[in-house]
């Protein structure tokens, strides 16, 4: 089974029941990018729902249309999302997203992968 894939924006990996998404350094996500990102993820998942650890420390900017897309279409087949962030930019983007877009699945931001994995373990 293929459990690894990559595109211009991120790399994806499935391990021990968790979907790991790591955004490349310095990416700006607009609607076009958001659609590609979700499409890639869904084609890897093959209809299975996973909790996801989304390392967005490299993300520089997420445009409004992309935020809206992530909160609706982008949450399909995800049980929960843990963002891996660092101060200051990615942390604030994740906070804004959770507050303003109210994603329909449990979503929290963490600064270490260990904390994120503990959170996701509840949704395995």
């Amino acid at each position, binding site marked *: 089974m293929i459990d690894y894939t990559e595109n211009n924006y991120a790399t994806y990996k499935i391990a021990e029941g968790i979907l790991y998404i790591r955004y490349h350094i310095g990416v700006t996500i607009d609607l076009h990018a958001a659609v590609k990102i979700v499409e890639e993820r869904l084609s890897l998942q*093959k209809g299975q729902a996973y909790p996801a650890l989304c390392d967005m420390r490299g993300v520089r900017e997420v*445009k409004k249309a992309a935020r809206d897309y992530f909160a609706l*279409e982008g949450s399909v087949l995800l049980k929960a999302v843990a963002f891996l962030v660092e101060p*200051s930019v990615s942390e604030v*983007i994740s906070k804004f997203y959770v507050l303003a877009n109210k994603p*329909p699945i449990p979503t929290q931001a963490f600064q270490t992968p260990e904390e994120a994995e503990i959170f996701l373990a509840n949704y395995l």
Partner: protein
Amino acid sequence: MTKKKRLKKLRNLLLEMGTGKFFYRLERSGKNDNVEALVSVINMMAEEIEEVHVHQGYANANETIKHIVVMHFMFDAKGKILAVNPQACNLLYYVDEDLIGQPLTLLLDENTSKTWEYYLECQQEDNSGENAMQLTFKTKAGLLIPSACYISVINNNKGHEVEKILTVVKHSKKQVALEDELREPALKIYDSEGLEGEIAVEKPMRKKVRLTQDDIKMIEDARSLMLNDLARDFRPLKEFALQLGTNTFKLKYGFKELYGISVYRYLRNERLRKAKVLVQYGDNPFKSIVQLCGFKSEAHFSRTFKKEFGLTPTELRNKTFLNKD
């Protein structure tokens, strides 16, 4: 750029927002410090506010009419600016002498400069007339204005291209609109007196019910409940309203006010959105999609789907599958 300069730009942007111009943005740097975080939140906030301006629902219910801010540029065949309207000069902090004879790239950020140059190159080979593109303008003071631009080519009577016109439309507010609105009923009274001589006062329009903060919170809750549980059957609405601690009228009326769409239509749209992604990119059997998205039956799902997207779920899945190969 120094911290001081970045903060100065931030201040300028906030001042512009204070006057009702929410279409300016701040240029992002590659840094990862507190100022950059602030810049990124303010940009996102400006995006949200700009959208609210266009939204016709509750957020704007007590607003005066929106004013439309437009920039016009006229170009020669080589893309040099021939003329520009004063409004555009104002918004970009330039005087027209600075701009005339210059290429548009002077006013664009790095990325969209390339888009524009590419467009001009293509235009030399294939002159197709109308075009729309997304360009980001940069003011003299360094603020950004991402804009949807419409470009038309003006031909002379022999069919040769003479000029190009680029138009940008933006929303803003202006007090003048309010004054016009105030003047309106007075004029109507005058007219009706003149014509009929008896009906002096127009029937007042039914007053809009005001939503309290609690109502708005309740309606937002209703929306998240629906989004989080599309599989659930929310009928009858009366029960759903009770669960939220309100009545059917307030839920129905308030939802429409806040989101500009009825509760059931919203639910249907969101179900379809979710279903579309699952059909396109998932491999769940349709039976499970029907359940996951809360449709009544497969037939109902298929029918609604076709009505919305022009293809049945099977057709869409096959199409996506073929495209992948």
